[in-house]
C-alpha cells in the first residue's frame, strides 16, 4: 500500500549490479543479478532474494553476496552502502522509489572510505575509534545509586536528543571530501596486537569526522559531560581535528538521521577558537 502511482507500469524483473570483492586488497569486479519484481521491496529484501537463489543473471552458480544488516528499520546503522552512487542505509532504500530514478538497474557498491572486508561489507572500526578520541561519554563517579541527574530544560533536551540519535552508520564520513580512506596491510611477522595498534595510531592522526565532532558537542552540552569539555576540545584542535573540515557540507546532506552536523561543526569551531585563545593566555 505504498502510495506510488499505481498506473505506472512495473518491470517484470529487476536487474541488480553489484560491485564485489572477495577479500581485503583483492581486485573488485562487477556482477549482474536478476530477481523477479515484487512491490514493496527494499534493498535488503533484494539481497535476501539474491542470497536464496545463489546464481547470477546468467544462471551461473556464484558465492553469495556478503553484506551487513541488523534492525531493518534504520536505527542500528549496520546496512550502509552506496546505492545508485549515493551512500545510504539499504534497509530503508525502497526499490519502487529507486526504480523511479533509474528504471534500468540498481547499482550496489560498498562504502568508499572504509576497507572492504568482502563485497558490501566494510570495516568501520575507525568510526568507533573516533568516539573514543573525543571521549564521547559522561564521566560519572560510579554506577551506584546516587540520586537523579541534574534537571534539564525541555529546550536542552530538544537540542541534545537529535545529536544523540547518531547511529554510527558512517554515511556522513563516506560523503566527506576531507575524510580519506585508510587501509593498512598486515605486515609479515606482525602480531594481531601490533597490527591493531598500528591501525589505531593511523586512525588517531586522521580526520575524526563530522559524527565525532557532533558527539563532542553533545557531551560538552551535558551538565556532567561538560567536565571533559577541555579534553574534547584539545582533541578537536589537534591533528585531524576540526580544522581538517573544509565546510563542504556533504555530510549533513546524507545523514539519514538528519543530524544538524554543520551546526555542530560551527559550534565546535567557535568553541575551539575560544579554547585556543584561552590556552594561549593561560600559558
Amino acid at each position, binding site marked *: *500500500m*505504498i*502510495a*506510488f502511482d499505481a498506473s505506472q507500469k512495473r518491470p517484470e524483473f529487476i536487474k541488480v549490479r553489484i560491485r564485489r570483492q572477495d*577479500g581485503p586488497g583483492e581486485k573488485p569486479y562487477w556482477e549482474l543479478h536478476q530477481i523477479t519484481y*515484487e512491490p*514493496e521491496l*527494499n534493498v*535488503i*529484501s533484494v539481497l535476501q532474494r539474491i*542470497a*536464496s537463489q545463489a546464481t547470477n543473471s546468467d544462471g551461473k552458480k*556464484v*558465492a*553469495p553476496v*556478503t553484506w551487513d*544488516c*541488523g*534492525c*531493518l*528499520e534504520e*536505527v*542500528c*546503522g549496520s546496512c550502509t552502502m552506496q546505492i545508485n552512487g549515493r551512500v545510504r542505509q539499504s*534497509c*530503508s532504500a*525502497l526499490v519502487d*522509489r529507486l526504480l523511479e530514478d533509474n528504471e534500468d538497474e540498481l547499482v550496489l557498491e560498498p562504502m568508499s572510505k572504509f576497507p572492504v*572486508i*568482502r563485497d558490501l561489507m566494510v570495516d*568501520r572500526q575507525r568510526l*568507533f575509534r573516533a*568516539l*573514543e578520541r573525543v*571521549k*564521547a*561519554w*559522561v564521566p*560519572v563517579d*560510579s*554506577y551506584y*545509586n*546516587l*540520586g*537523579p*541527574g541534574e*534537571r*534539564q*530544560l*525541555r529546550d536542552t*533536551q530538544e537540542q*541534545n*536528543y537529535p545529536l*544523540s*540519535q547518531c*547511529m*554510527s552508520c558512517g554515511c556522513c564520513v563516506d560523503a566527506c571530501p576531507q575524510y580519506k580512506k585508510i587501509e593498512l596491510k598486515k605486515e609479515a611477522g606482525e602480531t594481531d596486537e601490533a597490527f591493531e595498534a598500528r591501525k589505531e595510531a593511523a586512525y588517531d592522526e586522521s580526520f575524526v569526522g563530522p559524527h565525532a565532532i557532533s558527539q563532542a558537542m553533545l*557531551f560538552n552540552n551535558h551538565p*556532567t*559531560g561538560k567536565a571533559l569539555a577541555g579534553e574534547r576540545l584539545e582533541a578537536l584542535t589537534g591533528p585531524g581535528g576540526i580544522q581538517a573540515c573544509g565546510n563542504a557540507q556533504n555530510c549533513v546532506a546524507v545523514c539519514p538521521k538528519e543530524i544538524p552536523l554543520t551546526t555542530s561543526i560551527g559550534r565546535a569551531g567557535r568553541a575551539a577558537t575560544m579554547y585556543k585563545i584561552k590556552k594561549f593566555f593561560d600559558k
Partner: protein
Amino acid sequence: MPEQRVIVVGGGLAGLASAMKLSELGVKVDLFSLTPVKRSHSVCAQGGINSCNDQTRQLGDDEWKHFDDTVYGGDFLNHQPPVKEMAFWAPKIIELMDRLGVPFNRTGEGFIDRRRFGGTLYKRTAFAGATTGQQLLYALDEQVRRQEAAGNIRKFEFWDFLGPIQDETGRCRGIVAQDMVSMEIKSFAADAVVVGTGGCGLVYGRSTMSVFCTGSAASRCFQAGAKYANGEFIQVHPTAIPGSDKLRLMSESARGEGGRVWVPRKPHDARMPKDIPAGERYYFLEERYPEYGNLVPRDIATREIFDICVNDGLSIDEERMSVYLDLTHIPKAELDRKLGGILEIYEKFQGVDPRIEPMRIFPAVHYSMGGLWADYQKSADGGLEMGAPQNHMTNIEGLYAIGECDYHYHGANRLGANSLLSCIFTGLFTGPSIVAYMANQVSGAGDVTEAMKSAAQKKQQERHDHLLSNNSGGDENPYLIHQELGDIMTRVATVVRRNDQLSEAIGKVDDLHKRSMNVSLADTGNWSNQNVIFAKSLQDMFPIAKCILKGALQRDECRGAHFKPDFQKPSLTAEDPGERRRQAEVWLDEFDKNNEKYLKSTVADWNDGSQSPDLTYEDVDTGSIKPRPRLYGLVGADIIEDVFAERTREEDAPATV
C-alpha cells in the same frame, strides 16, 4: 589474588550493563557480540522504561503496585522475588540512566516526563523520543567504551558464541567463539560467563526483532545442558507494520499518546478512512474494555485484533489483514515531539504520513518471556538477596543468564516498557553475585588447561568443517528451511493454539530439523562466510522451536500470551443473581484447580538422544501476591471478583476457635 576475568556474551542492554558494572567492581571483562554492540537489537526499543515516580506516588502508586501490575499482567507466572526486587530498583535505574546522559523527554519544568503504557493505570514510563532503547543502549555503550579506553574491557565484535567450555564437573570455564570475518574458532577461558543474548524472534521467520535474534546462543547453552524455561510464552505484539522482510513494530506508545484502534463497521469498506464517519467506525477495544480502552495488556489487544480480522471478517482489506491505528486527531507538533521516531519509520517504509492517514497494523511476534532457566536466592523481605552467588546462575555452575534470554520476570505476558528495565536491572544486579561466586572458587581462568580448551575448540571446528564440506553431499537450502520453519511456527504457535495443530507441527518441525542437518552451502570458503554462520544458527533454532511447541502442547489452559480456545474459561451465563453467584463459585473452584495444575514454570532439558526436550514443571514463588483471576472483559467479572474477595477475606481472617 590473580586478575579475574568474566566473559559477557551479548552487548545489548543486559550485556552492557553487566560489563559496565563488573568493571566498576574491578573485574576484567571480555565482551562478545555478533555485531558492534552499539548495533544490538536493544537499539530498536521505542516506547520506554517503567518505574514508579514522584508524580505517580502522589496518585497512590508505589513500587509494590508496579510489582503487582507486572505480576498480574504476567498472569502470575512470574517469579515474585526477582520481580519485586526489580520494581524496587526501577526508580534508581532511571536515575542512573539519567546521570549517564540519556536524553529523556522533559516536562516544562525540567523533570523527566512520563507516559502511560499498557496494563497499568499510572504514567510510569520514561522515554526519550520514540527511540528509548537506542538512547539507553548508547548511554551504556559509551560507558563501556570509557571502560574499554581504561583497559578494563576488551571487545570481540563480529564474533559468534558457539558454546560454553565445561570442565569434568560440568562447571563453566569459558567459551568457544568464532571470528565471523576470519572464521577462526578459538577457546577463551574465564572465571565466569554471562549470557545476555536476547530473544529468538527469528524462529518465527519474520518478527519485530533484528536479524541477530536467532536464539542461537541460548540454544547452544541449552544443548550443552542448561535448562530452558517457559519457552511457549511468546508475546505477539498487537501493532506492527506488515512487511516482506520484517514486521516493523509500531510502539505501544502510539496508543499511550492517545492512538485509537478501529475498523470500518462495514466489512472491507473501500472508502478512505477519513471519509468514514465516526458512527460507522468500530472502536472495538474502547467498546469492549471501557476501563483500559486502547491500553489493554498486549495479549488481549492482540487477540482482539486477530479476532476482529479472522473471526468477524472486519479486516480493512480482505487479502492482507490489518486494522487502523489512528493518530490523526492529535496535533502534529505534539506527535512530532513525542512520537517522531516511530512515525518516521512508518512514513519511510510505507510511504504514507501517519499524521494525516491512519496507519494499518497487524499483530507480530515480538518477545520471548521464556528463556534460560536460572536460579536466585530469596531475601527475608521477599526480594532477592544482594550478592548471593546463585542469583541468575543457570544450572550450569558459573554460567549466568540475564536480559531477554532469562525467564523470571514477565511470566505469561510482559507489560510494555518492563523489558528494558529487566535487562538493565539484571545486568547491574548480578555484578556483585558474580564477584561473590568467583571469590568462592579455588580455581579460575588461569587454571583452565590447554587440553580442556583445545577439546572444546576441536568439537566446534569439526561441526564447522563438516558444514563446509556440505555435509558430505547434502542438498537442502538453509534459507528455504528457515522460511518453512517460520511459516509453521507463525501458524500454530502464536495468537491461537490448538492441540491437533501443535502435535502435527512437532512432527513437521522435527523433519525440518533433520533436513537442516543436511544443508548444502552456496559458500564453502573460509573468509567472512555468512552462509555457514546462518546455517549453524538455523540448526540451533530447532531446539528452541521444539520447546515452544511441546510446552504449548502440554499446557492445556489459557494463560497470558498462551491462548487455547478449547480450554477457555466460560463467561457467566445466568441472569438470576443467585444462580449467577453459584456460577461464580464454580468458576473460582475451577480457577483454583487449574492453578494447582498449571501455575508452574515449564522447564525443559535437552535430550540429545531423542533430539527433543524433556519437560518438567516447577512451582512458581507466589509468596508475596496471591494469584487472582485476570478478568479483563469477561462477562460476570464483577461477581467473580466479589466472591474472590470474600474468599480471600475468609482465608486471611484469624481462625476462630
